[in-house]
């Protein structure tokens, strides 16, 4: 890899600039979020975030210069390593992270990337026949493992990131949308299982599509069996196997208003902060919701609310456009790249970004559950920022080598 290529046509300047802008907006907002009116100064967390950013750029550059071939060759090993770390963190660490003095290492962050790599490698195999059900099984198992481990931590938000990953990857690898519907049908049945008419509609829809598509009898019966089991078991487990506190946890996850002190309060305050920002916002360092500390977690999960309060709809749309641009770049990198593995990797990475962005912003405006997923590049936090920089490093690497096949 020739380093001088960086500054010429092989650096995706648009993507790089957008990332820098995003991080800049993030640091500015973190400064504002930690600003104290009484004392007239800000806390030191924005300085920490600057240090994280520098480390992040180092991680990004390292990721950029490692030959993509190596990511392909070591995909399974990297995946195995990070999954082992996930098991170790459950057993030895603090369930979610290893406490390493000033920093916490959160293996689930890195596992997101290695899972994309391993799925991309599996699906990149040229003779993979995605019309057959059996081709879907290994990737499903590959994501199921981290899902279970992360779910045990318990970190429901991150578990959902893993589960959403497979859909766009299968789609990009050439699977038919109908097969993808079969794939997610148990999840849909789970949602419908608590309402009789919806359940009937779901079952009819499934049977209808089965008749239309006519998969092998064996596949069809397994699919029906799984769906029926889910439909019958879900209400039973809910009624008989779950404790009250577990039910309450699930219900408040789905409907934050139920938890007036925790998630519900956060969402109400976040909506007030965003709504009161109006078109142009209250001005930098002038957000009352933020400064009087009605808004919790304002430098991490709810940083978007601070932007909306102080810079209004204009600020909010600026951030949205920035994210759309980043996603569009990732997608066109996936289209342009000759190599199938690289292309699939780019799609997987874009999916991780999109899911975080949509769930985080959706949470602040009250249309998504409160999951604790941070906003990429903007939220405070070293582990997440470095992971996202590695992710961008991979995208830039793929862009630089888009004409190369290996």
């Amino acid at each position, binding site marked *: 890899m020739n380093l001088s290529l960086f500054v010429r046509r092989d650096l995706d300047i648009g993507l790089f600039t957008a990332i820098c802008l995003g991080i800049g907006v993030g640091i500015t907002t973190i400064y504002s979020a930690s600003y104290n009116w009484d004392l007239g100064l800000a806390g030191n967390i924005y300085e920490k975030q600057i240090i994280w950013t520098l480390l992040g750029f180092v991680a990004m550059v390292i990721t950029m210069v490692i030959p993509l071939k190596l990511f392909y060759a070591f995909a399974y090993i990297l995946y195995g390593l990070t999954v082992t770390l996930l098991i170790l963190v459950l057993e030895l660490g603090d369930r979610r992270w290893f406490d390493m003095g000033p920093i916490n290492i959160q293996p689930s962050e890195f596992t997101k990337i290695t899972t994309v790599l391993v799925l991309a490698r599996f699906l990149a195999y040229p003779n993979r026949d995605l019309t057959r059900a059996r081709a879907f099984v290994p990737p499903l198992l590959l994501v199921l493992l981290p899902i279970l481990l992360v779910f045990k931590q318990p970190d429901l938000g991150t578990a959902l990131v893993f589960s959403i990953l497979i859909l766009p990857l299968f789609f990009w690898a050439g699977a*038919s949308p109908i097969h993808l519907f079969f794939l997610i049908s148990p999840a849909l049945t789970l949602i419908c299982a608590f309402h009789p008419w919806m359940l009937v509609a779901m079952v009819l829809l499934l049977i209808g599509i089965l008749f239309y598509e006519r998969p092998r009898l064996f596949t069809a019966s397994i699919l029906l069996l799984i769906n029926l089991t889910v439909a019958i078991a879900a209400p039973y487990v809910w009624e008989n196997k779950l404790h009250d*506190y577990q039910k309450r946890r699930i219900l408040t996850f789905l409907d934050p208003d139920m938890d007036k002190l925790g998630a519900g309060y956060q969402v109400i305050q976040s909506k007030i902060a965003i709504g009161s920002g109006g078109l142009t916002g209250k001005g930098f360092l002038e957000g009352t*919701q933020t400064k009087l*500390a*009605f808004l919790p977690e304002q430098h991490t999960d709810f940083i978007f609310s601070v932007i909306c309060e102080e810079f209004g709809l204009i600020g909010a*749309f600026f951030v*949205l456009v920035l994210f759309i641009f980043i996603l*569009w770049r990732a*997608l066109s990198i996936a289209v342009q790249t000759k190599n199938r593995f690289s292309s699939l990797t780019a799609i997987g990475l874009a999916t991780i970004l999109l899911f975080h962005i949509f769930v985080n912003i959706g949470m602040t405006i009250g*249309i998504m559950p409160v999951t604790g997923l941070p906003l990429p590049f903007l939220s405070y936090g070293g582990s997440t920022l470095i992971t996202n920089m590695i992710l961008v490093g991979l995208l830039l690497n793929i862009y630089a080598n888009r004409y190369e096949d290996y």
Partner: protein
Amino acid sequence: MQNDFTHNGIRERRARILIGVVAFLFGILGIRLYMLQIAEWEQYRIKSEKNTMQPVIIQANRGLIRDRNGIILVDNRPSYNISVIPPRFLANIEEGKCNGLLERLGQIVDLPCETITEKLQSPNRHYYDPINLKRDVDFEAVSIIEENRYDFPGVEIQIEPRRGYPIFASPPEISTESSHARHNASQSFPLAPHTLGYIGLINASQYSRLKAEGYRYDDHIGKRGIERLFEDRMRGHKGVKYIEVNAKGREVGIFPEKTDPPISGEDLWLTLDWRVQHAAEHAFADSMRGSLIAMHPQSGEIIAMVSKPGFHPQFIRDPKAWQHLQTDPSKPLLNRSLKGEYPPASVFKMITSIAALDLGILKADEYRLEPCTGGMVFGDRRFRCHNKKGCGTINMRQALVKSCDVFFYQLGLKVGIDDWHRYAAMFGFGELTNIDIASEGDGEARGLLPSRAYYKQRHGFLAGGNMLNLTIGQGELLATPLQIARYTSALATGQLPIPHVIKGAQGGTTSLPLSQEVIKTVRSIMTDVVNSPGGTGHRARLPDIVVAGKTGTAQNPHGEDHAWFVAYAPAENPRIAIAVIVENGGSGGSVAAPIAQKTLEAYFEHALPKPKRTNGLFVFTNQ
């Protein structure tokens, strides 16, 4: 292949669909933002300017821990915290100076000014959240603050439920009411502290992991034992009320319709019987080290579980006392019942006997082995009997009653290590007991049951002398008191139970693949150990109930012998099985058996419905 992936036309068509998905999702976000910030802006602007609700947390009562009859082992008592709302308080003091208000407050809570100002800088909080200066203050401090509340702006008294441990000095009437009169932290010593565990202040990493579940940075959380294992069930759900504050943070009203009352945590019922537990803890002097476990042999329900020395859970809040507990060489925090590993000594001789009986090697009343002359030469070593004068020519019954070592050396060699290992494994040695509180909780030890493979791996070969040590329960062999208690239960019933402490937990038993005849013989011998004249277990006799048992005295290279005693009663229809070990206690018959006897006495006096008296003995009917 259905699609030629590398063909750009297909890629671009798929990319367009993905762009559509992205556009759709961002469209939703954009529309929603437009609605909040433009369409409903007026409404939210007014809300942000004028209202501003402040949540005030109402703590939930933690679930109580009750014994099998509902008697409360752990409950909650009210405690008082002195807390400060920093912005209101700081406005009234001179910065950097320790005088006036700050000095007075420092005197009341007995903290230096610097500590107070430091605490007020605590980061993990909302702006107007009160910060606890000092928790669980005495009533005097509370009354000084209350009387002068206008002199202390921003200083508040908050009530918080705290764990209380009722005193069990004398047996109370059975009542499930909580009685606060019984609480007195300095005198009470809670029962079964190792099993119940304790709660403590949440630490930084737990907080950052659990804040999404409603924990606050100064909450209490189960740290060990049942308190930790059942944290989710017992913690309950905090309530909240909303007060209305103006932009300066002053309270101007309350929103009663928004109040969400707290939900108390679930109570937890244990299988322990506090009267038996209490008797056992009293019989076991706190100066001793060791463990006692009493179990219902048919179900595996633990009736009493003692680990000595004990500790008081409230010491966790006193750093000095806590330091002392952690460095104490007698390890009071160690739960010896589940984690202590000891050589089981003569208590283990029943294994060799059962193997010999079941394999038809020797009958209980046969005099076929060489007489004991106080020792036996094997290889180039002399293996001694604890009875230096020798036990003479004896049969298996007499050998167990007198606990003759030489008899068992010979029998062990006849059985051989493979069969011995197989029969010992039947009783669960070398395996986890899977007690309900261990696997997700504080864990349990596995012990060590050496097999031929073990010696091959460790030393390259199996020496004959190893088997001689194993057969009398010494050598590399290790077992936890819980494993020994379970083994005693299995001897009493012929079924190996899964022990449990939580009432209603899944128990279950495994039948031992042994003939009833074998079990019956061993049981009749164990009855003799306690009841025949000169039996080593005679100190465990009860006046009205036939007790069966076995003593053990484990040689300990580091000091005095460990004293073992196992028993079950009544011999004919066992209702309780018990295992006692006293570390460095000396002889099992003289030290451990009396502790078992007092525990059994308490069980038969209190915990069973009074049986009918017939022919001078109590007879129990199987329930």
